[in-house]
């Protein structure tokens, strides 16, 4: 009975709001519809409508997938202190972080699905009726860990919100074990995604041991940077207050991760260019261009400049503690990591081809429209989750079946 009311209240909360809220959700829906149209074209004609080809067989979709797995994994940076270390500053922010994880994972799954040439055969991936190549294929691992992480990040916040909704306190013994699991799981989803590429001797650009750690460093840069922006928005636009300590600690996490990321970038660049071998061809293509082909050069150079600039700003205590510098640097870092870890990582892996041929890749309108549509879907899901979670946490949304006078306010 409570569950029915919970779902009804959630639906009501998600569909009611001011004019700006409806305008925002309406615009997202419109963008999603454009994306759906693009995907319908792709379904009808095949992946030939994308910029991909037999040489560059992955493109914008897998680039965004890689980046977003990192965004999902980054929730661990709030989950670990809030639940395991019982850090008071993060108590109010952690549910939002889990919302980010859920929406990022939905986007990941959507990007993988639109990348499939034969999506109607996707049931071949399912246990029992399909034939999953586990434990051999890293993609099979990825299917398992991504869905598992999605389940964990749906269950934990749902349990906490639901118990608050029916006016009770969550029972720690029921959810804390899952929290511990999700901490390890978060690291594993991103490592598995890195291993998916690092395990390919055919692609020397990916085939090195630093790829996994570098994925984690860049994820813990872009993820918390996005969280700072989102929490600032929630804090300034709603009555739900986020503790200042949460911003300080997240800013510190972002800064240290960005510094480590830069050290790793430097280490990679040194290995590739100090004594360039045949294996450095892809890096050469990325940073300098190869035989006149240099489509990615402006992108990666922009990303590096933005990365170094924002990391330097955050490294200076006084600037990091100024709200505007902090928000500005976080936006810049988010964009820089998206370029560097998306197109800057996936596309050069295919150029030159294993037999040395150079065929460049650039996305078509269909890919761009579908990509933007999936991002709109992610933001839509995130907005709904936050819109439902906040009133419950503030004690404004309670089951009509409980006795109001005896119900405790939220933690």
């Amino acid at each position, binding site marked *: 009975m409570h569950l029915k009311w919970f779902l009804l209240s959630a639906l009501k909360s998600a569909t009611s709001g001011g004019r700006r809220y409806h305008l925002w959700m309406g615009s997202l829906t419109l963008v999603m519809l454009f994306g759906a149209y693009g995907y319908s074209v792709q379904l009808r004609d095949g992946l030939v409508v994308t910029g991909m080809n037999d040489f560059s067989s992955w493109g914008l979709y897998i680039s965004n997938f890689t980046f977003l797995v990192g965004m999902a994994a980054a929730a661990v940076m709030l989950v670990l202190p809030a639940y395991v270390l019982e850090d008071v500053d993060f108590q109010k922010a952690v549910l939002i972080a889990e919302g980010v994880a859920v929406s990022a994972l939905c986007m990941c799954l959507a990007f993988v699905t639109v990348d499939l*040439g034969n999506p109607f*055969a996707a049931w071949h991936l399912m246990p029992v009726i399909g034939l999953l190549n586990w434990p051999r294929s890293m993609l099979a691992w990825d299917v398992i860990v991504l869905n598992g992480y999605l389940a964990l990040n749906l269950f934990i916040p749902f349990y906490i919100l639901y118990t608050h909704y029916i006016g009770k306190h969550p029972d720690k013994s029921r959810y804390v074990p899952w929290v511990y699991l999700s901490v390890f799981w978060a690291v594993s989803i991103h490592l598995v995604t890195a291993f998916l590429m690092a395990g390919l001797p055919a692609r020397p650009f990916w085939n090195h041991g630093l790829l996994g750690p570098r994925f984690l460093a860049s994820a813990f840069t872009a993820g918390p940077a996005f969280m700072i922006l989102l929490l600032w928005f929630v804090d300034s636009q709603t009555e739900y207050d986020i503790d200042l300590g949460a911003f300080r600690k997240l800013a510190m996490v972002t800064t240290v991760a960005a510094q480590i990321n830069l050290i790793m970038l430097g280490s990679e660049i040194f290995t590739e260019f100090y004594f360039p071998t045949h294996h450095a061809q892809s890096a050469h293509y990325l940073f300098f261009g190869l035989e006149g082909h240099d489509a990615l050069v402006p992108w990666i150079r922009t990303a590096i400049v933005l990365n170094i600039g924002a990391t330097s700003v955050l490294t200076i205590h006084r600037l990091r503690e100024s709200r505007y510098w902090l928000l500005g640097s976080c936006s810049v870092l988010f964009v820089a990591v998206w370029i560097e870890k998306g197109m800057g990582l996936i596309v050069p892996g295919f150029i030159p081809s294993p037999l040395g041929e150079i065929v460049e890749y650039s996305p078509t309108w269909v890919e761009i429209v579908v990509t933007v549509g999936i991002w709109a879907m992610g933001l839509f899901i995130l907005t709904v989750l936050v819109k439902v979670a906040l009133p419950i946490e503030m004690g404004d949304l309670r089951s009509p079946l409980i006795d109001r006078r005896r119900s405790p306010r939220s933690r």
Partner: protein
Amino acid sequence: MTERRELTFDDVLRNAGVREAQSRLERLTPDPATLPPSERERGGGCGSGSCGCAKGPSNTLLDKPLDRRGALGAMLGALAVTTQAVGACAPTSMESDEEREAKLLAQEEYFKGNYRLMTPEERAETVARLERLAELRGDGDVSIRTDGAVPGVMYGYAFNISKCKGFRNCVEACIHENNLDRTSDRQYIRIFEKPNGESINDLEHADATFGHEVPAEGHYYLGTQCFQCANPPCVYVCPVQATWQEPDGIVVVDYDWCIGCRYCMAACPYWARRFNWAEPEVPAEELNPRQHYLGNRARKKGVVEKCTYCIQRTREGRLPACAEACPTGARVFGNILDPDSEIRWVLENKQVFRLKEDLGTEPRFWYFMD
């Protein structure tokens, strides 16, 4: 008209494995007398026995008890198939019986399992469906074989760099033998042209798209294709086991099980795999009707394919089309387990090497010089 609409929806249920629809189907079968004359002439539309819709040639899902895999597959796929199926039967008067039959056969194909897990009966059924589908498509009388590896055979290939002159007869023969897509100008074989004195390992500066008269002065030629590695990275990475190595060493793809993720293409160090970015097209008059399930049968949009050493020929004891077409004798193919074979002689008497041996993929494709 309303009656017939309902009838067609029952077909959807029936094909998704719902048994009860059968009786309703019979009850709702329209009396030919009540149909408009145009429909009567054509045999009563959807309800008549001549049409695949009502009493199709092979109701595999319906006739045999469903196992767990089949039942779950049916339920799961019902959603995806509803769209196709509704489209398959809805505007009955617009469609010919053959179109309807093709769509129903395609639905049955949708639910079949991985080739390696099929029983001999299931293999026979899918082959019958595929052959009929080819006929309905206008591809004529196609025969698809499913014969397995011959015991005691392990195929190997050797390429004589001194003899290849870059004529590319092999490329042409491969296109026709394997029914490669003509629209995208698909080729499994690449012939690289290199100036004498340049190392074979340095393929970066080789040209695979030369358009001048061959052999060019001061150049040598080097062919690549799928090397059927003994340790194939492409097979490792496939998430659904849609590609595997047969006992005779040939790495094959189950085109109907492939989901089109293209992970194998990223994993191949020799750029041997190709993807069907659009629906592949081969003119019916150029189609090779002698086909193998794991070889040159029709592929579809969104799946991966590759060289199979012409599995449809080699399993019959014939040479691959490329080896047969080579006018210079640069290509040596055979059973490396047979001590009297030519390939064995090359491996025992020539200094041979393979591409990217440092990766440990162990290709079964060797290069040598005279």
